[in-house]
């Protein structure tokens, strides 16, 4: 389990009828457009993570005046990368969605729950996920993951 530091993170919510133009402008600025619902994309400069109904989290500096609401979220999220052979088993104790590799593939992302918390979960490797939760709940996020991991390990 390691912390993922997102230095700059903004929420991008395109205005009515502007999603196409906002995506084009993003593409020009960071090389990535808006991803499809449930998908996260990245390049060396930036990441775009679908974050819900008409909204995306963008890890980069962007300017989309008139095209989308852009809200600073750089300090709003705690992000953890968890990986290992048992990662799906650990998450299965906490997350009520289907994270099997056959259905939740690399680059898939979901807004869902982890225990009682609203989170964003992205598969970032065959045995690796990134989990984002509200900053104020970072301690609980770590606690819940550790407790689940300890039990999965103790089962053998």
């Amino acid at each position, binding site marked *: 389990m390691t912390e993922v530091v997102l230095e700059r993170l903004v929420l991008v919510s395109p205005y009515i009828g502007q999603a196409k133009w906002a995506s084009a402008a993003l593409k020009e600025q960071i090389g990535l457009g808006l991803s499809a619902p449930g998908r996260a994309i990245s390049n060396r400069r930036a990441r775009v993570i679908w974050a819900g109904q008409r909204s995306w989290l963008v890890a980069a500096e962007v300017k989309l005046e008139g095209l989308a*609401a852009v809200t*600073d979220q750089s*300090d*709003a999220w705690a992000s953890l990368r968890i990986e290992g052979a048992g990662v799906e088993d650990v998450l*299965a104790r906490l997350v009520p969605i289907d994270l099997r590799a056959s259905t939740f593939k690399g680059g898939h992302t979901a807004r869902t729950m982890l225990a009682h918390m609203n989170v964003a979960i992205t598969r970032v490797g065959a045995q690796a996920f990134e989990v984002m939760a509200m900053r*104020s709940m970072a301690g*609980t996020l770590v*606690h819940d993951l550790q407790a689940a991991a300890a039990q999965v390990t103790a089962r053998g």
Partner: protein
Amino acid sequence: MRLQEPEDTVSFTFDGQSIRGVPGEPVAAALMAAGVKLVARSFKYHRPRGIMSAGSEEQNALVTVGRGAQAEPNVRATVLEVSAGLEVFSQNAWPSLKYDVMAVNDLMAPFLGAGFYYKTFMWPKAFWEKLYEPIIRRAAGLGGLSGQPNADRYEKAFAFCDVLIIGGGPAGLMAALTAGRAGADIILADEDTAMGGRLLREVEDIDGQPAADWVEEALVELRALPNVRLMTRTTVTGAYDQGTYGALERIAGPRHIDKPLECFWRVVAKRAILSAGALERPIAFPDNDRPGVMMASAVRSYVNRWGVAPGKTVAVFGNNDDAHRTAHDLAAAGITVAALIDSRPDIQAEGDFEVLSNATVTATKGRHALEGITVTQDGEAREIPVDCLAISGGWNPTVHLTCHMNGRPTWREDIASFVPTPDSIPGMVTAGACNGAFTTAACLKEGAEAAADVARGLGLKPKVTVPAADERAYKIAPLWAMPGKGRKWIDFQNDVHVKDINLAAQENFRSVEHMKRYTTQGMAPDQGKSSNVVALAVLADATGRGIPETGTTTFRPPFVPVSIAAMGAGSQGKGFAPERLTTSHHASVARGAPMIEAGLWYRPSYFPQQGETYWRQSCDREVGYVRNAVGVCDVSTLGKIDIQGPDAAALLDFVYVNMFSTLKQGRVRYGLMLREDGHVMDDGTTARLGPEHFVMTTTTAAAGQVMRHLEFALQVLRPDLDARIASVTEQWAQFAVAGPRSRALLNAVLDARLTDADWPFMACGDVAVAGVAGRLFRISFSGEHAYELAVPARYGASLFRLLTAQAETLGGGAYGMEALNVLRIEKGFITHAEIHGRVTAFDIGMDRMISRKKDCIGQTAAARSGLMSEEREQLVGLKPVGAVKQLTAGAYLFEPGAAAERINSQGYTTSEAYSPTLKTGLALGFLKRGRARHGEVIRMVDHLREIEAKVEVCDPVFFDPDGGRARG
């Protein structure tokens, strides 16, 4: 007695007696091997009971495992696995299993028939609570709990698959092989410790090899398939909507501090195959409950699978061919078979034992263990000494899960049983014995075909190959209850016998559901697994109806008892709810502040200083900071919502009662939000940061609700509005800096000085603190000259330290929730104590804020005359004027002369505080026609705390009524 000496054994205890057992075998097998026959006392009559079955349907052998907080009651000894050091206790007996004093109930049996509780403990009414109920509860309990917190770990988990196969007997294994080979993602769950179901106990061949070998081969193949997950010790407990199934897994192996005992699974399956097998049913004959009377198939399990003889001399009694297997298997194991007794007139059976056709068992004897039976053939009775009787009344398909969504099973005359009605559960098919297919060959075939159908439905191409297997047809002649004297037990767990059911029918509880409740047949842990059909048959007979017309009771989840600990796993202790911590949390804790919960947030109550022994001392001092110098308080928990877009102002006009489109940039306005039904939802301030950019604050309590409400307004009510909202509560750490010296403090920390001209009351704008960009709002929740300063959360902890240090140099310091509450009550500012969901803008005196120049949520409904009536309870202030100075929140208000009764209630109090500023207690409350009653003296009565005070009604704004201090 063991048939072969096992290689390694461990010891465990039963009621303190040391017993040797093979690790992993059921405790029931080890008890049987040790010659223990009496294992429990029955529920109502405390009759001696022994082991009856070899599975989770066991009704008698319920035991308690472990001691103290970790004791688990009502565990089936037939399921519980032997492990070294296990402590097992019998239950429902005192002082001991052999000399149970409550066994006197059995002698009183004529008085304790069905409906006894309802009839006897009726009168006098007052006796029920004090006398009858405690005695009944003590006498009738099944096991007990320690009342202490359970330190054991439990787990819950989610699983997803294409096909859930429920039951790993011949049908389930064949289904798993067929669908697994075709590539479907499968979970095969079985409640036993091993897959194989009936094949583990039967002596027969599949594909020319012993059935057990075929099972092993199948498992080797299944384990090698990456798309197949085998879950033993896992009982599927319920079928729910949209392909969701509950399953309880018992986790095996040595104990470890972090290791869960059980896991409750929520399995989501595209399709399911129910191959849950069948349960053998008893026959009701007199005293059929003596320890030593067992189900015939269970006898085969103990002999063939566990290598344990249930007796030295065994008789077999049945009405079907399956019972004959037991006689043959016993004889083959070298156990004396005293007789094979079959109720049918002409039967084909041969063996090294006496075969009695057209014969029935009509009595048994023996007190703590069976000693003999009476067999009646052609009207002649004779006694046969036996220490075990194997009985079989036929088989009941395990239809339970098909009934969990209102399905009703269908009666099949040829097998005298209920079978599942097709399509009872969307997405589920049934196969094998649970479908009424009782031969191994039919089970394998149905399993394969069901799986092939399911796989094709998933777009796969399955191949069906079915191995050759036993095809002996199952023949049965129904036999439910014998005539004759004595109690003929049907539901062993709940102590229900034939006469109870007849009595129910006689007293006109003829519906099966009424009979169940009247007699308790099929209730509690058993849920009518073994007893159900026999009970129905007896009821059908008593009421002169057929069994199909009589119908079954409703089978509900869970199929086996599921501990609350497993269902709620992970939600105790820290797992109960997330902890939301502010950026100043650690600094507050370091200052010794007791933290209180505000929703999920933790906030400091007050910051104690040396010499302060009581919270009020700290609180009064902190109030003084704000009134006289400067106080600092973390207000980051208030909801903050960023609103942007061309229609941002229009959205605010729609959700707030007052106008926001007219708000100037760089200014803040107080807003009141209603629900559509005209009641107050929330309040807060909203700042205009730019032409199309606002930031709204909500109360801490309603942050989530307001966010949902704004999305509702935008997505459901006004999708035409081009505005976007985002929660920024987490992004910003925000601190109130309040008091006459607040500007001095800010000027010491901000990069640029604040001026009167640029920063009037209700101004807002960008500022910088040591180069960090922040936002400043000149707003006040204390009535003083005050600000709220926000910086990105990463700087919150250091800003809090900086502000408090500065405040201390100015004669102030940090203040907590207690002081914040006193400050706002002094000013008559409302919180959710006042806007609790039943108050209107009119009630709090804000109806004139509702703008008529626009439509807004709640505007129309708020104008209803009932919500604007002068008779309504209106917000008032209250001050003590009598001898009693203590006011309380939640107390009721009465006219001075009126009795303190509900009918005379004039209103109630909502908040209360001692004001160090005004040196008096204060309260806010709601009083009928309150605004017109300022100056009146009334009674405040707190029935709960037994406090009564004379109070004077006044304006809710106790301090600085013209607001000069905040503006100055």
